[in-house]
C-alpha cells in the first residue's frame, strides 16, 4: 500500500538528448550523483535511474536515456531510447514527462530532435542546457519565444552550476499528479503515433530548424582560435599521433609514480592491523583465518585502489574534455587496416580500466561485425585488475633503475600494455581474414567542442569506480579468500610433519595436480593454486598468492610482505613467464559472462576463452624458455 501510493505520487521523467548535450551532467545535478545503474531487460544497454525531491518535498524519478541523434536509430543505444519514449520496452512504463535536453550552444542538432520528439504527442518540456555558455558567447536564446513557437515549456538550465537545474524542477511541478486518482494534467496520452521518419520528412524538419532558430536569436558558434589551433595539432596526422602516444605514456607513468605514496600508506596500515590482531587474538584457527585468509588476501588487492583511481581519472578527463573522439579520428584508418572501426578506440580504452565496461561500451558501434571484433579483443587491453599482478611482479623482478628520464619499472609496464595492444591488433587482423562477409559501417563521429572537465561529474565517476572496486573486494574476493583459506588449511598435516601445513592440504594437492600442466612454462605449484581463484577475478590471483605464501610461511615475519618472498623464491624466468601469461590471462569469468550476455550466444565466450588460453600458454612457454636460455 505504502509503496503503491508513493509510486503514484512520484513523477517519472526521462532525459532525452543528442550525445554531448550535457545530459549526464544535468542528470547528476538533478539527482546529486545518486544513481542506480542497471541494464534494460534483455539487452545490455545501461539503464541509469535516480530520484530527487523538489523544495516542497515532492518526489521525482528521473531516467537518463542513452544519447540519440534521432528516433530512427543506428545503434542499440538509440533503439532503446526510441523504444522507451514510445513505451515499447517491456516492463518499463513510458515516462510521465519527456525532458528533451537541448544544448543552447549547438541548437540545430538539438532542435531537430526536439521537433521529432514533439511529434510523438507525449507531454514534454525542453531543458535549454548550457545557457550560461551561450550568454558568454554573446547571445541569449529567447526561451519564452522558443516556448511560444514550439508550444512546449522551455527552461534554461546550467547543469554544471549549483542550483542550475532549479528552473527545470520548478517547471516540472505542474505535471505532478495532484492526488493519486487525478491522473496527468497534460493531454496527449494515447496520441503516441508510430513514426518511421523518412528522408523527405527529415529534410522538411531540417528546413524548419534555421527558421525557428533565427526567430529566437540563436547564433551559430564560431570556431574559436584556440580550438582551431588545438585541432591543428591534436588532429594533425603526424603531430597528433605523437601527442596521443605521449598522452598514453604519461598516463601509465602516472599510474606508477603518483600512486606510490598512498600505496605505501595502505600497505603500512594493513601490516599494522595484522600485527595488532596477532597480538590480541589467541593462536588458532580464527587468528589464522583473519590474518592469513582475510587480511593477507584483501590487503594485497586493496592496495591497488590508488592506481585504479588514477587510471580512471585520466580516462574520465580525456572523455570529458572532448579529446577521445579526436583520437578515434586519428586511429580510424590505422584500425581499419586490421578490420576495426575508429569508434572501437573508446571501448578499447575503457577496457584498460576493465574489459566489462569496455565490452558494454562496444554497443555504440553500429555494425554487429565491428562490435564482435571489438568485444573479442577487449580482454587483451590490460585491465586494471591485471595491474596488481604486474605491479607485484615488476616490483619483485625488475630493478629500480633510471633509463634516461624514465623509470625502468614504468617502461616495463608500458611494454606490457603495448604487447597487449599489438596482440589485439594481430587477433583482429586474423579475424578479419576469416570473417569474409564485409558490410559497410560508417564512422560519422561527432567531434565535440573542447571543454574543461566538470569536476562534479569527475568526482561522481571516481566515487562510482571506487565503490565498484570495493564492493568486489568485499564480496567476491572476500568469499574466495575464505574458501581458499579453508582449502589451504585442511586437512591438517599429520603429526610430526616437517613442511608447512599447506603442502598437506586440499590446495596443496590441487596445486600439485595442476603443476603438471604448468611446469613446462615455469610455474610452481603455488602459482597453479593461485590461478584457480583468479578465474573469478584476475586480481584475486595476487590475494591468493598472498594467502598461499602466508600459509606456507613458517616464519611469521613473512606474512605481510609477499613481494620479497617471491623475489627470493622464484627464478627470474618464472617471474617473466607469469608476466607474459597475464598479457593474455584468459581467466576472468565475469568477462566471459558479459560476452555471453552481449552476444547472446555461447560461441564467442568459448572461442575467447580458448584463444586466450592458447596464446597465454604459448607466450609464457616462449618467455620462460628464452629467459632460461639467456639468463639461467
Amino acid at each position, binding site marked *: 500500500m505504502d509503496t503503491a501510493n508513493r509510486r503514484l505520487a512520484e513523477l517519472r521523467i526521462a532525459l532525452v538528448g543528442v550525445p554531448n548535450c550535457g545530459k549526464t551532467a544535468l542528470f547528476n545535478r538533478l539527482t546529486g550523483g545518486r544513481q542506480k545503474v542497471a541494464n534494460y531487460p534483455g539487452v545490455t544497454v545501461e539503464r541509469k535511474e535516480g530520484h530527487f525531491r523538489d523544495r516542497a518535498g515532492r518526489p521525482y524519478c528521473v531516467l537518463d536515456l542513452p544519447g540519440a*541523434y534521432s528516433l530512427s536509430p543506428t545503434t542499440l543505444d538509440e533503439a532503446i531510447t526510441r523504444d522507451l519514449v514510445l513505451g515499447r520496452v517491456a516492463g518499463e512504463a513510458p515516462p510521465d514527462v519527456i525532458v528533451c535536453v537541448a544544448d543552447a550552444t549547438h541548437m540545430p542538432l538539438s532542435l531537430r530532435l526536439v521537433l521529432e520528439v514533439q511529434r510523438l504527442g507525449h507531454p514534454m518540456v525542453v531543458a535549454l542546457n548550457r545557457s550560461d555558455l551561450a550568454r558568454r558567447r554573446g547571445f541569449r536564446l529567447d526561451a519564452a519565444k522558443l516556448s511560444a513557437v514550439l508550444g512546449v515549456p522551455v527552461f534554461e538550465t546550467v547543469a554544471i552550476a549549483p542550483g542550475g537545474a532549479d528552473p527545470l524542477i520548478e517547471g516540472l511541478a505542474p505535471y505532478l499528479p495532484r492526488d493519486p486518482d487525478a491522473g496527468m494534467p497534460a493531454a496527449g496520452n494515447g496520441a503516441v503515433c508510430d513514426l518511421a521518419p523518412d528522408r523527405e520528412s*527529415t529534410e522538411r524538419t531540417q528546413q524548419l530548424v534555421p527558421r525557428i532558430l533565427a526567430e529566437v536569436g540563436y547564433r551559430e558558434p564560431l570556431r574559436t582560435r584556440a580550438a582551431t589551433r588545438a585541432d591543428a595539432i591534436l588532429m594533425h*596526422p603526424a603531430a597528433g599521433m605523437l601527442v596521443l602516444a605521449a598522452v598514453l605514456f604519461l598516463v601509465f607513468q602516472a599510474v606508477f609514480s603518483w600512486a606510490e605514496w598512498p600505496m605505501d600508506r595502505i600497505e603500512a596500515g594493513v601490516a599494522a592491523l595484522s600485527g595488532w590482531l596477532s597480538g590480541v587474538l589467541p593462536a588458532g584457527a580464527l587468528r589464522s583465518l583473519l590474518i592469513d585468509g582475510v587480511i593477507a588476501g584483501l590487503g594485497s588487492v586493496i592496495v591497488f585502489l590508488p592506481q585504479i583511481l588514477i587510471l580512471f581519472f585520466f580516462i574520465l578527463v580525456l572523455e570529458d574534455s572532448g579529446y577521445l573522439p579526436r583520437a578515434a579520428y586519428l586511429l580510424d584508418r590505422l584500425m581499419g587496416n586490421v578490420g576495426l572501426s575508429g569508434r572501437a578506440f573508446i571501448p578499447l580504452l575503457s577496457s584498460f580500466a576493465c574489459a566489462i565496461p569496455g565490452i558494454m561500451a562496444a554497443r555504440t558501434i*553500429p555494425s554487429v561485425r565491428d562490435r564482435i571484433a571489438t568485444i573479442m579483443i577487449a580482454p587483451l587491453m590490460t585491465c586494471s585488475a591485471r595491474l596488481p599482478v604486474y605491479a607485484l611482479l615488476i616490483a619483485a623482478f625488475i630493478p629500480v633503475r633510471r633509463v634516461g628520464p624514465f623509470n625502468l619499472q614504468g617502461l616495463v609496464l608500458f611494454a606490457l600494455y603495448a604487447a597487449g595492444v599489438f596482440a589485439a591488433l594481430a587477433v583482429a587482423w586474423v579475424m578479419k581474414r576469416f570473417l569474409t562477409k564485409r558490410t559497410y559501417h560508417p*564512422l560519422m563521429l561527432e*567531434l565535440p567542442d573542447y571543454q574543461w572537465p566538470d569536476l562534479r561529474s569527475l568526482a561522481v565517476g571516481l566515487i562510482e569506480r571506487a565503490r565498484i572496486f570495493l564492493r568486489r573486494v568485499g564480496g567476491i574476493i572476500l568469499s574466495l579468500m575464505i574458501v581458499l583459506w579453508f582449502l589451504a588449511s585442511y586437512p591438517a598435516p599429520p603429526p610430526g610433519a616437517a613442511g608447512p601445513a599447506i603442502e598437506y592440504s586440499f590446495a596443496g594437492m590441487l596445486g600439485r595436480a595442476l603443476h603438471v600442466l604448468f611446469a613446462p612454462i615455469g610455474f610452481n605449484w603455488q602459482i597453479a593454486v593461485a590461478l584457480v581463484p583468479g578465474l573469478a577475478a584476475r586480481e584475486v590471483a595476487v590475494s591468493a598468492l598472498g594467502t598461499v605464501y602466508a600459509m606456507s610461511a613458517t616464519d611469521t615475519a613473512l606474512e605481510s610482505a609477499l613481494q620479497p618472498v617471491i623475489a627470493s623464491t622464484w627464478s627470474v624466468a618464472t617471474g617473466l613467464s607469469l608476466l607474459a601469461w597475464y598479457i593474455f590471462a584468459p581467466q576472468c569469468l565475469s568477462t566471459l559472462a558479459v560476452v555471453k550476455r552481449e552476444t547472446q550466444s555461447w560461441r564467442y565466450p568459448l572461442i575467447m576463452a580458448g584463444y586466450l588460453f592458447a596464446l597465454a600458454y604459448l607466450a609464457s612457454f616462449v618467455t620462460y624458455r628464452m629467459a632460461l636460455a639467456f639468463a639461467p
Partner: protein
Amino acid sequence: MSVAATALPVPLSTLRRGARAVVQTVLAETPVIDDALRSTVGQRLVELGFVCGVEIEVVESMWPIGDPLAVRVRGSTFALRRREAAAVMVVPAGVAA
C-alpha cells in the same frame, strides 16, 4: 550568400582541408548501416545537418588521402570517412585563407 551557381556539384570527399562548400544534396543510394534498424548513411547525414543550402567546411583531413575528414556543419564538427563523405554532393565556395 552568393555562391558561384555555375560551379558543378562534387562529392564532399574530394574537398581538401580548409575548403568551404554548400551542400546540394545527399545521394539517394547510400550504404545501409543496419538491416534490422533499417537505417542508412544518407538518413543519418541528413539528420546531422547535411541538407540543401547549408554551408560546410572541411576543418581537418587525415593523410594520405583525406580519410577520414573532419567536417564542420551548422556549428558542429563530424568525422566522416571518404565513403560517407562521397554521398554528399556539394558546390565548392572557394578555399579559406
